[in-house]
Structures are given as structure tokens and as C-alpha cells.
């Protein structure tokens, strides 16, 4: 999947000459936590987050509350030249960027202009969608030996039961690297027949265990 397919295109922005007060208002009204700052031709010149603002304004507990601080211009507190993304970037790639750079949002720029935004929350939601967790289904986890062909052997059982698989994840077994764990979301309320048949094929179905105990 590419960024273009998931980015928000309706982006709230301010310019460097706006005040902290403007930023607070805009963020509160639209329930957002990140504001790209653009210049008069729509290029991204900075970014302001709710955290930048919290750091800039004095704590309520301090005696000498200086109201002028709210009039400070955004250019004084914004992060200049932030990391940006492109509409054709792969979602997996930008996920790595979020993680490595520890950022909360990524302005998406094309032709020198801001065209969209992706936040950490959007990314997480997309991940949930990709795992199929928003569609009714049962989850089945299977421990299989790490050799070619096992995914086929297990998915053959779903085929035999005419069960629709919503998603598949493969990840290493943390306990034993000779194994892998396959996680299926299957569109069925009654996975008992499937589980029985996977077990008959000789695989371990981890379903469910007493938390923290393994069988």
C-alpha cells in the first residue's frame, strides 16, 4: 500500500506569523495534535505539536503568568524543516520512519506543496484494518515448524472448510526459532472443526492458553 491511499488530504495548517493562541484554538476545535506550518505558496516550513505548545506556555502553577506568551509567533516554537513524506512512499517505509525518528506525524509533500498528512493514529488504524480485526471473525494461532510448505498445509484446512480468511500474519516463535507462529483471522463463529483438522495435520493450535502459560 502506498501513502496516497491512506493519507488525510483535508489538512489544517497555519503560517509562521500566526500566534500560539491561534494554534491552540485550531487544535482544540478540530481535536488534532499536529499542525504543519506552511508559507504563502503552500510549502511546508515547519511543524507544531501539542507538546511544543505545552513546553512553550508557563505552567498553571507558576506565579508570574505571562499572558503575552500566547501572542508569541509560531515561527519561534515550530520545528523547522520537519521530516516529510511523498504520496508514493510505501506505508511500511513510513512506519519505519515513525519508529526510527520518534515522530507523531508526517506531512506529505508533492511538487513542493503540502498535499496530505499521516499521523501515528492513522498508521495504527491502518494496521488494525490490515489484520482484519474490524470484521467479524475468530482468531486462530498455529505453531508450525519453520520449513517451506507449512502455510500451504494449514491453509488447505481453511479451503476444505470453505472458510474465508480475513488476514494472515507470520511471526517468529519467541521461544523456539525452529518454529513460526501463524495468526489467522477467519470469518466464522465456529472454528472448532477447523481447529480439530489443523491439529490432525500435526500442528499446535494455541487457542487460548491460560495467560502466561504455554502448553
Amino acid at each position, binding site marked *: 500500500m502506498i501513502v496516497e491511499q491512506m493519507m488525510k488530504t483535508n489538512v489544517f495548517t497555519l503560517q509562521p506569523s500566526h500566534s500560539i493562541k491561534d494554534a491552540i484554538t485550531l487544535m482544540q476545535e478540530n481535536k488534532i495534535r499536529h499542525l504543519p506550518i506552511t508559507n504563502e505558496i503552500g510549502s511546508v516550513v515547519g511543524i507544531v505539536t501539542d507538546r511544543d505548545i505545552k513546553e512553550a506556555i508557563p505552567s498553571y502553577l507558576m506565579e508570574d503568568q505571562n499572558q503575552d506568551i500566547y501572542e508569541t509567533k509560531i515561527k519561534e516554537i515550530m520545528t523547522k524543516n520537519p521530516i516529510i513524506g511523498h504520496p508514493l512512499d510505501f506505508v511500511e517505509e513510513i512506519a519505519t520512519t515513525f519508529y526510527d525518528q520518534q515522530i507523531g506525524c508526517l506531512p506529505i509533500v508533492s511538487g513542493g506543496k503540502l498535499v496530505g498528512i499521516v499521523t501515528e493514529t492513522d498508521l495504527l488504524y491502518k494496521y488494525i484494518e490490515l489484520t482484519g480485526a*474490524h470484521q467479524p471473525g475468530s*482468531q486462530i494461532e498455529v505453531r508450525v515448524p519453520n520449513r517451506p510448505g507449512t502455510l500451504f498445509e494449514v491453509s488447505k484446512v481453511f479451503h476444505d472448510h*470453505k472458510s474465508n480468511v480475513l488476514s494472515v500474519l507470520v511471526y517468529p516463535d519467541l521461544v523456539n526459532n525452529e518454529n513460526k507462529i501463524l495468526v489467522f483471522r477467519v470469518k466464522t463463529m*465456529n472454528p472448532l472443526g477447523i481447529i480439530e483438522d489443523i491439529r490432525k495435520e500435526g500442528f499446535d493450535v494455541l487457542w487460548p492458553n491460560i495467560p502466561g502459560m504455554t502448553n
Partner: protein
Amino acid sequence: MAKHTGNDKLKKHAVYVYSEEQLGYKFSETHPFNQKRLILTTDLLRKMNALSDQDIVIPRIATDDELLLAHDPRYVDIVKKASKGLMTSSQTESFGIGTEDTPIFPNMHEASARLVGGTLTAVDYVMENKALHALNLGGGLHHGFHGRASGFCIYNDSSVAIKYIQQKYKARVLYIDTDAHHGDGVQWSFYEDPDVCTISIHETGRYLFPGTGNVTERGSGLGYGTSFNLPIDAFTEDESFLDLYMTAFREIATHFKPDVIITQNGADAHYLDPLTHLYGTMKLYQEIPKLAHQLAHEFCDGKWIAVGGGGYDIWRVVPRAWSLLWMEMNDMELPQGKLPKEWLDQWQKDSPVQLIPTWMDPENLYEPIPRKEEITEKNKQVLDKALYHIRPHYEKE
């Protein structure tokens, strides 16, 4: 308790909506959803002398207009055609029927519309003050969606009934679902509606169908704050289940102030249920209806409609659980000790498992749970999160 005195005299105490035609909702001989449990329950109640012919009301069939209150006309049309054998599975699969969960069967439209009609019959009895309480054990098909079948449910009787109550009686409805699965179909039908409050307590979607019902699902738009979810851990036992149920139900009813309460009484949170992983016992089914009954009198002049739901151990669990529900509805003292011998004798020969001969479950039904305290503690956190937005915040530090 002077609950049913004075002008209630003309009114029936409670009605039992039932006919054997409800057994027409049948996918196959081997399908886990088996309405034979209605016969087993009805027979058990009769043998207890807890149910007489005068209590029974025949369910009507819901009309197309009524079904369309909560369902897409295209979907109803597909079900009707499939019902007559005019559709193949490949044509209907995108509507959730003709699947392994919800196969096509002859007359499935009529059978499904009859279950909905039963719940509407129950609604009319209660809302027209002909009875204080009404029970339709054939209903409770909470997974049915607006435009497709899901999880053994074709039409969603509760969703239709709530829309019907809103339209015909202009009442505020509180729907509470204690089935082990999330009441997703009903929740999504009223997710943006501030005048319907849905509560679902269920095993988390970690493994269990349908996977939704997270504590953060609270409704949206104007309906924000009127959907409540209490996802509890696999292996949860009676005490923790009941603690969440009782606290949430009372606090939410106090906050929402319903005119009528609908309870969905799936009996699949029991330890013996083959499809789920909760560790409930008959204690749950003794306590759940008690509070519903009490709150219906406290908040709604008694208006309480109860429907069935899941329940896949039809021999050992469902008949006892649902009998307790009916007896509570009638203010009967809940039975202790043995089940009627005639009932056990009659059904043991058909049952593939040894029946449980007593009303309560035997001690040591299962091995003790190693991490009980942590599970209880985690469920408690879920409760606090679910109710956070209706509790006064200053109580927090």
C-alpha cells in the same frame, strides 16, 4: 416486595412467547445453533409447574416493513430468494449466507421473520401494558447486520424491535447483552443514536468471534457515550463477571434513565459451552436476571423484554439457565436441589452427554484457574475504563 399489586391485577405478570414453529430456524442436523433447546427448556418449566398454557403467547411473523426498520431491502430480497432455493451460495456469500456458519435452508426467510416477530410480540405485550415482562427465547440473534448475516444470525430481532419501539412507542431503550460474544449487530445499529443505550459484556475478541467490542467503542456522533463494552478475559469466573455486570448495569441505568429494558440472555458464558472460553457456572444465570428484574421495576415501571441468544451446550446448560430466567421473571423462588426426575428420565436417552441432575452446578466443575487474581484485576480495569465518562471525575485523584 409489593412489586405487582393494585392495578397490575388486570395485567399479566409475564408472558412466554413460544411455539414449536420457532424450531424451523434450523441450519442442519450438525450445526451448533440448535433450537431444540427451546423444547428442552419449555418442557423443564412445565415439569416444574412453572409454566402453564395461559402464560404462552404465539409469536407472530414480522412483516417486510418491520424487517426493513433495521435491514437493507436488497438483503431481505436475497434471503427471500435463497429461502425458495432460487440462489446459489456463490450468489449469496457476500451477504453472509450460504456460508459454513449460516448455510441456506428452505424457508429461511419465514423462519427468521418468525423469530423477529416473536420479539415484536413480546414488545407489544409489554409496551401496551398487557404484561409487565415478556420473554422470547427464540430471539436474541445479536450478530445480524443491516445488510448481511453473521455468526448464525440472519435477521436481528433486537435491532428491529428497538427501531419498532422507537417508532411506535417513542421510548428510550436500554439493551444489555450478556452473551459471551460481543453484541455487534445491535451495537452498530444504534452506534450514533443517543436514545438507545447498548451494553455488552463478553469474552475479549482476542480469539473469540467477532473480535470487536473493545472498551473504546463508545458510540459516535450524537450517540457518543451510549455504547458500552466490557470485554472480559478468557477464563473469567462468576465473581468477576457478576461484579462487572452489576456495577455497570446499575450505573448505566441510573445515568441513561431508560423507559424500557431489553436483555439478551445468551447462555454461552458457561464453562461447558464448547464455543467460548469463559468459566461461568449456573450462578451467573441465577444472578443476571435478578438485577435486570429489579432495575426494570426501579426505572421502567417493570417494562422488561428478555430474549434468548447463544448457548451451545443445549443439554447441560441452556435449559437450566433459561428456566431460571423465566422463574425470576415470575417472582418464583429460584429452585435448589434436583431437577424433576421425569425431565431427566425423558431426555437423558437423547443426550450425548450425562445431564447435570441439579439446578446448581456441582462443586469442582473445573480445575482452579492459576491466574485468577490477575484476570479479576484486569477485568476491573476494563470496568473503570468503560464507565469513566459517566463517573464524576473529581473522585479520581
